[in-house]
């Protein structure tokens, strides 16, 4: 049995394996350090939108209405690290008007990214996505719904995106849309297996260990294969998901990102 990885060959792949790979796995920035090494534009813009709708009533658009706090100038009463910021937002400040907020991880990443970059961010002219238009693009010209389901509605050959807005940050979604191959979650990679009897099975990997691999095949069946039964097993590093870098303009990308960020899972 050969086990190797090699570049994408269109003929070997079924078109539906659009492994956007956004629905599982890590998606938020590391939280074990004072500040993230880098704050990303998409997260900052997402945070700016949340800030405008949730925070400005008390903090003001410049973040300087509370005495002793000036976000734009980086002045806080008790916050030092990004984790302090997250904690203050999610637990509130007892005895003050600052109540606890129930933001998800991607929303918190956005808010923290914005607060750390208010001074250099032109929120007024930020690209604001429209989730409604993004949904139309998702189901229409973007052709996303030909591979991805949303909350169980749609094909299963690529991951269901019903909760992608809760588990992936705005920046990761943006990068995935413009450069899908380099931002593929490894477990979701396409695989090709050939049994000793010569049967070929293509699918999206769900799990793998030393002796076996689990996948969803082109017919949307869950299939578990024993490697010793295979003549060939290949993990593909590429993805049939197209890049939308040139297909969508900046506003359209913002729209579709806004739609994906609105998908918070079934509550």
């Amino acid at each position, binding site marked *: 049995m050969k086990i190797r990885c090699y570049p994408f060959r269109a003929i070997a792949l079924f078109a539906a394996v659009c492994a956007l790979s956004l629905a599982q796995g890590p998606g938020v920035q590391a939280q074990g350090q004072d500040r993230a090494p880098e704050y990303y534009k998409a997260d900052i813009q997402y945070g700016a939108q949340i800030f405008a709708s949730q925070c400005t009533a008390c903090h003001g658009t410049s973040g300087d209405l509370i005495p002793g706090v000036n976000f734009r100038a980086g002045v806080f009463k008790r916050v030092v690290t990004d984790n302090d910021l997250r904690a203050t937002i999610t637990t509130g400040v007892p005895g003050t008007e600052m109540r606890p907020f129930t933001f998800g991880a991607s929303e918190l990443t956005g808010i923290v990214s914005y607060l750390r970059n208010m001074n250099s961010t032109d929120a007024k002219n930020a690209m604001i996505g429209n989730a409604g238009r993004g949904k139309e693009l998702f189901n229409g010209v973007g052709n996303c719904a030909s591979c991805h389901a949303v*909350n*169980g509605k749609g094909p299963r050959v690529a*991951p*269901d995106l019903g909760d992608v807005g809760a588990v992936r940050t705005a920046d990761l979604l943006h990068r995935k849309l413009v450069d899908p191959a380099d931002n593929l979650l490894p477990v979701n990679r396409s695989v090709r297996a050939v049994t000793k009897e010569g049967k070929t099975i293509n699918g999206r990997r*769900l*799990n793998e260990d030393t002796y076996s691999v689990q996948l969803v095949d082109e017919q949307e069946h*869950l299939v*578990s294969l024993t490697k010793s039964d295979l003549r060939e097993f290949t993990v593909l590093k590429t993805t049939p998901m197209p890049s939308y870098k040139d297909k969508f303009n900046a506003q359209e990308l913002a729209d579709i990102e806004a739609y994906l960020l609105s998908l918070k899972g*079934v509550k």
Partner: protein
Amino acid sequence: MKYSQRTSFLLALSLLIPFALRAQVTSERLLHATDEPQNWLTYSGSYASQRHSLLKQVDPSNVKNLELKWVFQAQSLQKFETTPLVIDGIMYLTQSPNDVIAVDAKTGRAFWVYHYATSPASRPCCGIVNRGLAILGDTLFMATVDAHLIAIDSKDGHAIWNVKLAEASAGYAMTMAPLVVKDKVILGVAGGEFGVRGFISAFEAQSGKQVWKFDTIPDPDQPGHDTWRGGDWEHGGGAVWMTGSYDPELNLTYWGTGNPGPDWNAEQRPGDNLYSDSVLALDPDTGKMKWYFQFTPHDPYDYDSVQVPVLVNSNWNGAPRKLLMWGNRNGFFYVLDRSTGKFLNGKPFVKVNWASGLDANGRPIATPQPAGATTYPGIQGATNWYSPSYSPRTGLFYISAWENYGTIFAGVKADYVAGTRFTGGANMSPVAGAENPTGTRTGPVNTYTEAMGSGAVVAIDPATGDKKWKYEMHDVNTSGILTTESDLLFVGGREGYFQALDARTGTLLWKQNLGGEIIAGPMTYQVDGKQYVTIASGNGLFTFALRE
């Protein structure tokens, strides 16, 4: 029930063409679940809930060659009470609190995990547990400890819809596997220790829209309300926390109900307290009740009647009859006519002194014990929720029993405070120095011993209610029971042993120490021509098959 030609054909087809039956689980397939014994399509194996499989590759002659094939370790230290489903080679199981895992039924390797973040307000009385799933089409259905019902895609483990049935903060919870009938998902709520008002409800499988709701404790405008005094009914209990059964010919579902509230202080809720401790026959389309039968009126002992209803078509006094068999927590084994609810027979299967017997209508002849005296069976009952089994081959009803187990009951006044315990008891063990035993023992040392009595598998002849045989255990028995067409009986126990008995005689044929308390029901299935037997023990799910 016979091993029909249709069954043989389907089984042979499934073995020859492994992918041919990878179709959706239609309501038609659920109606004929026993015709595809390679699968396990419902919590109890079929709508009749006999937990009997037509598989017979493993038989009394070769059961000694069973060997462990794989183990799934739950990512939880809570009790592991799940009975998995198996559909065409894929197993679906639940782990605490409310995770669903799809695994390869041959190897135990996982395809996906669905995790549901339960509300911190949830407060199930007796463990953060889940007992299993239902399926229709490609959709799994799970009830949660914070009283939600969730539909989950069986192919990729994503939630499709999620509906809230009741307030978890008020003590409502759900631990049962739902029951799918036609296009509906039907289930009930737990919470009998919190003074909830129980109900059973049906939801459209497609959308999650509620179709009907049946309150198990009637309000002033409903029949049966006159069995309550004043406003006692408002916190009257009657929880429904085990999966029901279904007779498609009668178009009736059967559900057991739990204790009235407060559990033990019956003085503060005079009357029969309908429909607590009863079996209810409900129309699955409308939720209307056709009949009820109350096992323990005005119950001061917490004798929940939530046992799995077992449906059997058999001769009764020489004529064919649709029977309902019920090994009750109150210590009596009952046979009812499931068309009408008429009582046919009842007899104790353990030591009983709270009643001297049953009258012609099946109503207990109560013999309350004096203050300070021991009542049998005790708080945990003669049995509890663990699934019994009925074998059409032997014609016997099998039940896990607690023998010689009693409690000194003492009711005390309970005040209802939403979300807090509403039980009203100061009960004691009759054994000096022993604590009042709990429903489960989690450690490897049996510190209760005689205080808990002892356990047994009891084989009952339904025609007479007499015991045909008994397999005794030192510790009490918290396991469900599985029988197979090869006359094997699989059962676990609190001691951690997984055992195979001869269903005809009760003779021990095989045992394996799995090292953890077994508080779940065994099930069996077949993939690629090999029969597997699965049981949860401790925090692992263990699967056995014959050695090659």
